[in-house]
């Protein structure tokens, strides 16, 4: 052991550690380099080139918890629902948005309105995203997702035809299920 000279074999034994530490530092460095401030996120949400970019920024904006929550009240929800892009409208039904305010507007004014007739596919996607989401009644969720609902969701995503009558019947049956459970 003496002499303070470290043998090459002993140094070699720590090479995997050095590689791992290097990878960890690389990841940290990448994160620091790519980290976006609140202002940058805000700007990406407003001026993002694509819907995906805007959605990605919005997801962070709504979750980071550094902004005043009152910003994401009813005017914000209305603003989202007035977007041209269906995907941006539909994000108004997610936990990200619904956790800021009792989502009564989404439930009664939007999903209870005329959108079913106007665009059944968009209606069904919004309904599933809103009523079948994970998180419970606080954010507007109703009952859990069923296979049939998922199958219709995929039809809606691919803009395949959906039967309004079938959907109305199905929704009525699920409302009755909720009522039955509440009466338990």
């Amino acid at each position, binding site marked *: 052991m003496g002499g303070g000279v470290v043998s090459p074999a002993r140094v070699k*034994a*720590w090479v*995997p*550690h050095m590689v*791992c*530490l290097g*990878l*960890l530092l690389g*990841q*940290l460095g990448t*994160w620091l380099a790519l*980290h*976006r401030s609140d202002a940058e996120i805000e700007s990406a949400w407003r001026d993002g080139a694509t819907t*995906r970019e805007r*959605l*990605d920024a919005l*997801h*962070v904006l709504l*979750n*980071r*918890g*550094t902004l005043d*929550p009152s910003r994401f009240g009813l005017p914000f929800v209305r603003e989202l629902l007035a977007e041209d892009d269906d*995907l941006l409208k*539909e*994000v108004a039904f*997610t*936990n*990200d948005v619904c*956790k*800021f305010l009792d989502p009564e507007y989404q439930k009664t004014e939007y999903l209870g309105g005329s959108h079913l007739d106007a665009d059944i596919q968009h209606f069904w*996607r919004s309904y599933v*995203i809103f009523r*079948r*989401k*994970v*998180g*419970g009644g*606080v*954010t507007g969720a109703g009952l*859990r*997702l*069923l*296979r049939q609902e*998922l*199958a219709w*969701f*995929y039809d809606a*995503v691919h803009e395949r035809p959906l039967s309004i009558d079938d959907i109305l019947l199905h929704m009525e049956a699920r409302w009755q299920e909720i009522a*039955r*459970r509440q009466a*338990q």
Partner: protein
Amino acid sequence: MEDYKGSARPLVVLCAVGVALRFLFLCLAGDLEFQSDEANYVYLAVSWNHFGFYSDSYRYLWPPGYPFFLAVCLDGFEMGGLFVAKLLQVLASASIGFTTMLFARRLYGGRTALVAGAIWCGYLPLIGFTHYFWSETLFLALFLPALYQVLVVLQADGGARDGRILLAGLLLAGALFVKEMPLYLAPLLALLLAVFPTGLARIEGLRRASLFLLAIAVPILPWTLRNAEVYGRFVPLGASLGENAHGGLNAPYKNFDLTAYGRHLFLEESPETLARPWFVAADPDGEWARAEHIRNTPDRLAENQRRGLAYAAEHPGWLFRSRIKKLADLVAPASFFVRHQGIGRYEESVLGQLSVRRALVSLAMLSPVILLLLAAGGWFGTRMDRTSRWLLGTVLGYVALTSLLVSMSRFRIPMVPFLIVLAAGFATRGGRAGGRRALFSIAAAWAVLACLWWVDLPETLAVIRYAWGGAS
């Protein structure tokens, strides 16, 4: 340590039989309706595909592994992706079966490995999870090989290769992406790596332990940083303790093996209400609500966790009584397979036909009872090397401790492969070690199990009634 270098062919054959049996159950079960968290996992996967970002579940911050797995299957095959996901789970179960046998061979030898393999093949509660959308199968398929690699390193006299340590860390990191449950097990395993084999130079022990932890840290750091970017908080992978504290460190008694009966059969009283009052009675005014006003999910979950711990500290008597109940729930002969039968999930399939259902329910309920009895015998009445005992004891103790928070048989699943190994050890080598002291310990363990089964007897009888009779 036993001679573990026999032919692998019998193990591969048994593994193939087990996988074939699981495939048969998958086909017979048909298109099962989503149950409880299954719908949540599928929703998360679908919304990930739809919006392009991974949303939290409001009450949980689940790790992304399982929703990602489902998202990939659904993205590729739409509704057909549901079957593809289950098929991949059936195939992944080969890892569980094979590793269980490898553990048994290392601890007790080739004959025990075959018995362990046979038990794994027919263990219905495990079979069930291969055709459910719960993460247990994928998790075990990564978790068990990780632990096996740790065992090999612990037992290696002539210096373990770093490759094994790295592999163990990477596999455990993979398991953590599916379920964050073993997060705090990692430092305990590192401690074992630092200590065993005895006689190891201290610096070499530290070198191994730190390499193991680094191998875990490298794959999980990106998602931790993603959480920091999105939520502004450093959360390694996921956080489910807050919601589990709401369920388990709170006045109302909840048991997720039982709640579904009340909900699906529209019962006036859920089987949970049958629980013996002494074990579950709590101050009804003491029930605490979730911190819904906190918008940041990790902060909200942390506050729920704090409220749960505060409630537990304020009610030490209740904590003691209710943990006995949790322990009883952990060893109860319940399973999700029995629950699926009881609430009629299999009604449309061959598995739900009266005679088949009764035979399967009997088998599914007897399996954990026999397994636990034999495993207790294996722990106290068989000879195994010290490192294996330390590893198994650490894993079983850790999983049991985490399961004391929320009641349900699903939390027992990570213990099952080890219970199978111990049970097979007792079946093949019981009575060869320990003498009268071992016999006394086995008798004491069986008495404790019998007491715990007595604690859960009222609910168990109700479950038998529903599962035996079916939902109708």
